[in-house]
């Protein structure tokens, strides 16, 4: 549909964020998030064995890794929808890319704050300039820049195209973050699975692995909920913008 036609057909949405079906989906996702989070809490704090040297501080690992997983997944979704937007030029793809990038930034903040707390307890320092930490910080700045592009003044499709290119190129840092500790020498960041040049992965005890997988599942459901909410809101915001344009034109005539 052309921009003009979209504006002519613009109708004011209801002040509810989504329709009846949408409210159900939202409620189901919210309920599933709460339940899965509570289950993961049980497995983290009661079921999973306590690590012998780090004790309770090791439990940071479950939220830290799950946040990193969510951020990577969110940036991957941005990457995919950015490509789709550049091919098909449909606004809905741009909405998914934008909302997902925003969620990714939020969870990268959690990674970058829980990481130093872990570091303080394990390495006796808040921050070390080592490959994993540096590449994660770069990832954060890339997607902050992506969001800043979206906040600029200008025509939406120009901004969307520029942001899409940024979203595609920026994603290149995600595998670099993941493989950083496996490619380069690092004394600090532990490798759990696989081996690196300076250390070998120690693996995990079964109870810890179950707790980690359940926390990752809970975070994935949380992501689905936040993405659904965010995209519904964006759809509504765009309808309001189009309606305002229509009203402005009507008043000028």
């Amino acid at each position, binding site marked *: 549909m052309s921009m003009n036609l979209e504006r002519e057909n613009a109708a004011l949405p209801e*002040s509810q964020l989504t329709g009846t079906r949408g409210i159900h989906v939202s409620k189901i996702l919210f309920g599933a998030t709460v339940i899965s989070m509570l289950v993961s809490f049980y497995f983290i704090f009661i079921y999973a064995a306590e690590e012998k040297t780090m004790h309770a501080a090791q439990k940071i690992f479950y939220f830290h890794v799950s946040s990193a997983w969510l951020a990577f997944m969110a940036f991957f979704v941005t990457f995919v929808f950015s490509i789709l937007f550049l091919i098909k030029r449909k606004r809905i793809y741009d909405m998914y890319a934008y909302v997902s990038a925003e969620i990714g930034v939020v969870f990268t903040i959690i990674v970058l*704050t*829980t990481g130093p*707390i872990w570091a303080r307890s394990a390495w006796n320092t808040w921050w070390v300039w080592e490959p994993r930490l540096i590449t994660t910080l770069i990832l954060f700045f890339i997607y902050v820049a992506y969001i800043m592009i979206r906040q600029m003044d200008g025509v939406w499709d120009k901004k969307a195209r520029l942001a899409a290119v940024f979203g595609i190129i920026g994603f290149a840092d995600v595998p670099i973050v993941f493989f950083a500790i496996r490619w380069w020498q690092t004394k600090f960041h532990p490798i759990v699975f696989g081996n690196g040049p300076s250390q070998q992965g120690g693996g995990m005890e079964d109870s810890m692995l179950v707790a980690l997988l359940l926390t990752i599942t809970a975070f994935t459901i949380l992501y689905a909920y936040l993405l659904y909410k965010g995209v519904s809101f964006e759809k509504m915001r765009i309808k309001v913008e189009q309606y305002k344009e229509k009203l402005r034109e009507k008043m000028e005539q």
Partner: protein
Amino acid sequence: MMNYEYMFGAYSVAWVVIFVYMFIIGRRHDKLKKEIEFLKQLDK
């Protein structure tokens, strides 16, 4: 040392970030709702 302070610190920070984000989403929604109500009045 059981390191409970680090665990509580990290979990508190994580939940504060999540709740602040949800609060921001809620604020955006409220603002848009007010805008819709205003536009409805304007269009009458």
